[in-house]
């Protein structure tokens, strides 16, 4: 049974946090390739109204259990050195980052495939919900395409 890691932070993901995360890997000199995916909040226009932020909520315990299982499957499937996942909860404004997925491997193919697959699974399988808040404070619930 794997240790359950937290993936949530109650704020947007800052570029400095991403930089620190990259820096931590400079001592892992078996790594040759890093793949990073970032999700950023779009100011979508819907029926004349503009999204100014998304507020994320989650069934946190279930997310962390499912993410632990996904992590195990990804490590079993791909020869990667490490994988880090961070998702925001609460309000994230347009232009800010809400999702940070970071995989590393010796050669690029494994990190790239693992990153793509885990982003796909995060969007499809984790019980997280985004409420799109418009500039006039009305809202609608986000639908993943």
């Amino acid at each position, binding site marked *: 049974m794997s240790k359950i890691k937290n993936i949530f932070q109650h704020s947007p993901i800052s570029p400095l946090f991403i930089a620190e995360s990259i820096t931590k890997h400079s001592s892992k000199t078996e790594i040759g390739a890093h793949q990073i995916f970032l*999700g950023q909040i779009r100011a979508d226009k819907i029926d004349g109204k503009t999204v100014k932020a998304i507020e994320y909520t*989650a*069934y946190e315990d279930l997310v962390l259990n499912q993410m632990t299982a996904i992590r195990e499957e990804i490590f079993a499937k791909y020869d990667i050195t490490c994988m880090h996942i961070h998702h925001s909860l609460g309000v994230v404004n347009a232009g800010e980052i809400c999702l940070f997925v970071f995989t590393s491997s010796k050669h690029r193919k494994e990190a790239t495939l693992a990153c793509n697959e885990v982003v796909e699974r*995060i969007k499809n399988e984790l*019980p*997280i919900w*985004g409420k799109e808040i418009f500039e006039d404070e009305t809202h609608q619930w986000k*639908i*993943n395409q």
Partner: protein
Amino acid sequence: MANIKIISFGRLKEILGSDFELEAENSDELLNQLNEKFPQLEDLKLRIAVNQKIISENTDLKNNDVVALMPPYSGG
């Protein structure tokens, strides 16, 4: 009759409000009660988890089980 805790998320939480308790012997019976109480539920896709396990068929419930009602996910 088992005493069940109902939790809900996203759009469903706007309909169901705060967490509450219901008596039901199985998940189908519980859903029937909820559909009666909240007619808007019928038009919505939902996933159900019992004690953090997602179920796809009618499932027996026991005292203190937690049933989560979840609309389609939209993380990321």
